[in-house]
C-alpha cells in the first residue's frame, strides 16, 4: 500500500499565527482563552464571556479584498494553506494529481448571519452577491482549491468536531487509491459569534468559568465544566512517499492509519461504553499495522466535558491494554480551546510535531486530576518522548457520534 507522508504544516490558532509560534506556546503551556472584549454577554444575556480567538487576526495577514470575499472560516484556511504549501517547498505536481480536502464543522456562520441581518434591516437589494459562495460549507475547500490550482478533486467532509481529522483521513485515502500524489488537507472554524456561543451555552456544553478564562479548559480535572470555544485552522500537505522522495522533500511524519466509526447511539452524547471510539482506534492501528506496544503518545479529543473525557480515556485503555502505561496523554484543548472543525487538523499537527520533536505537549489547568482517569496525563509541563520509531494516536469525535482516529508514525 502507498505510504502517505506529511511534507508541509500550516496553522493559525489561538496560540499563534503560524505553526512555530503555536507549537512553542503549546510547549510552554500557554492558554489562548481570554475574556471577550465586546458586549455580547450583556447585550444578549449569554452566560459565557470568553473564548479562544486567533492570536493574530486574519485582517492583519490578508489583504482587504480577500477578507471581503471570504468568510472568516475560509480566511483562516487560506492563511494556514499558504504556510503549509510554502513549508512543503511548493511541490511541483500535475494539477490533475493535486487534491484538496478542507472541512469546517459549522460553515460560513458569520456570512450567513450578517446577510440575514442585512436582509432584515435593508431588504433583499442590499444582500451581497458573494453571500452564497462565502457561506457554503465547501467554501474553504474551494478557496484552497483555487489557491493551489488543484484539479484531482476538492472535498469538504463534515462531521462536526471530527471534521478536520476526517479530512486528513480522506486525503490519505485519495493518495492510497491513486487519485492524487499530493493533497492539501485539514480543517478550519470561525464560529466565535454570539449566536453559536448562545447555542452551545444552551446545550450546556460550554464552560462558564467567566472569572478565569485561562483556567476554564481543564480536561481530566475534577473541576472541568465544559469546553472553551476556539477558532482557527490547521492544514497539512500530504504526499505519497514516492512523490516526496522523488523531489527530495523533508518528511515530518507519516499518517500511517485511518480509523472511522459511528456510535449509532445519540446525537450529542458519546456512547458510554466507548465502543465506537474503540472501533475507530483499533481500525486505525490495524490499518497502520502498528501494535499497541509501539504507541507512546495520544493526543486526546478531551474537550473538558464531564462525561466525554473519561469515556475516551477508558477507550484508550481498552484498546492499548497494559501498553497504555507507557503512553503520554496530551489534551491540548486545555490551551487552544476547541476549534470544532479545525480541532482534528490542529491536533494532528501537534501529534506530528510531538513525534518529530519527541516532546509531548502539556495539559494545563489540571490541579486535581479526576481519580477515574486511567491514563498517564502529561500535566503542567511537556514531556520528552523516547528515541527510535514511535507511533501516536490522534482522536477526534463529533456531535452525531462521528469517531475518527489517526495513527501517526515517525518519519
Amino acid at each position: 500500500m502507498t505510504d502517505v507522508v506529511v511534507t508541509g504544516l500550516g496553522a493559525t490558532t489561538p496560540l499563534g499565527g503560524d505553526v512555530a509560534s503555536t507549537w512553542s506556546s503549546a510547549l510552554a503551556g500557554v492558554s489562548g482563552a481570554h475574556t471577550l472584549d465586546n458586549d455580547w454577554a450583556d447585550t444578549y444575556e449569554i452566560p459565557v464571556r470568553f473564548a479562544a480567538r486567533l492570536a493574530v487576526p486574519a485582517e492583519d495577514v490578508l489583504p482587504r479584498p480577500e477578507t471581503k470575499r471570504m468568510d472568516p472560516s475560509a480566511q483562516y484556511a487560506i492563511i494556514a494553506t499558504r504556510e503549509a504549501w510554502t513549508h512543503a517547498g511548493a511541490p511541483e505536481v500535475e494539477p490533475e494529481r493535486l487534491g484538496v480536502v478542507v472541512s469546517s464543522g459549522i460553515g460560513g456562520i458569520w456570512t450567513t448571519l450578517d446577510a440575514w441581518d442585512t436582509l432584515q434591516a435593508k431588504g433583499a437589494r442590499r444582500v451581497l452577491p458573494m453571500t452564497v459562495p462565502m457561506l457554503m460549507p465547501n467554501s474553504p475547500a474551494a478557496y484552497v482549491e483555487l489557491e493551489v490550482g488543484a484539479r484531482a478533486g476538492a472535498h469538504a467532509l463534515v462531521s462536526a468536531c471530527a471534521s478536520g481529522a476526517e479530512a486528513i483521513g480522506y486525503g490519505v485515502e485519495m493518495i492510497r487509491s491513486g487519485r492524487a500524489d499530493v493533497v492539501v488537507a485539514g480543517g478550519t472554524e470561525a464560529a466565535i459569534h454570539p449566536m453559536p456561543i448562545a447555542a452551545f451555552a444552551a446545550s450546556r456544553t460550554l464552560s462558564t468559568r467567566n472569572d478565569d478564562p485561562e483556567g476554564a479548559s481543564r480536561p481530566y480535572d475534577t473541576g472541568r465544566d465544559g469546553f472553551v470555544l476556539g477558532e482557527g485552522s490547521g492544514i497539512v500537505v500530504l504526499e505519497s512517499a514516492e512523490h516526496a522522495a522523488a523531489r527530495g522533500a523533508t518528511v515530518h511524519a507519516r499518517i500511517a492509519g485511518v480509523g472511522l466509526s459511528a456510535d449509532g447511539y445519540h446525537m450529542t452524547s458519546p456512547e458510554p461504553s466507548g465502543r465506537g471510539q474503540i472501533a475507530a482506534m483499533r481500525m486505525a492501528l490495524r490499518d497502520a499495522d502498528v501494535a499497541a506496544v509501539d504507541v507512546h503518545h495520544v493526543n486526546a479529543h478531551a474537550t473538558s466535558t464531564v462525561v466525554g473525557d473519561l469515556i475516551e480515556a477508558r477507550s484508550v485503555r481498552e484498546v492499548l491494554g497494559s501498553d497504555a502505561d507507557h503512553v503520554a496523554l496530551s489534551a491540548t484543548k486545555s490551551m487552544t480551546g476547541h476549534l470544532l472543525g479545525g480541532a482534528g487538523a490542529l491536533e494532528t499537527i501537534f501529534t506530528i510535531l510531538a513525534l518529530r520533536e519527541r516532546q509531548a505537549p502539556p495539559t494545563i489547568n489540571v490541579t486535581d486530576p479526576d481519580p477515574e482517569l486511567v491514563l498517564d496525563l502529561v500535566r503542567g509541563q511537556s514531556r520528552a518522548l523516547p528515541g527510535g520509531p514511535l507511533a501516536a494516536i490522534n482522536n477526534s469525535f463529533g456531535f452525531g457520534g462521528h469517531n475518527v482516529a489517526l495513527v501517526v508514525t515517525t518519519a
Partner: protein
Amino acid sequence: MAYSEQEILAGLAEIVSEETGLPTDSVSPEKSFTDDLDIDSLSMMTIVTLAEEKFSVRIPDDEVKNLATVGDAVSFINGAQS
C-alpha cells in the same frame, strides 16, 4: 443631498478599491470595468449593490450592462439622484 460627480467618482473608487485591491487613483473615468480593472460579473454586482447603498440610488439590472466604464457609472449615478 445630491453628490457631485467628483464625489461620486471618489466614492466609487473606494468601493472598487475595496473589492479589487487596486489603488483608488487607478479607478479613473476612462477605465473599463472588465478590460482594465479585471472585474467579473459577480464583483460588478457587488459594486452595484454597494454603490446603490452609498449614493441612495437604484441601478436596475438592465442598466448594468451599459456601464462599461467608470465614467459611465458616475454619469448614471449622477443622473439617477433624485
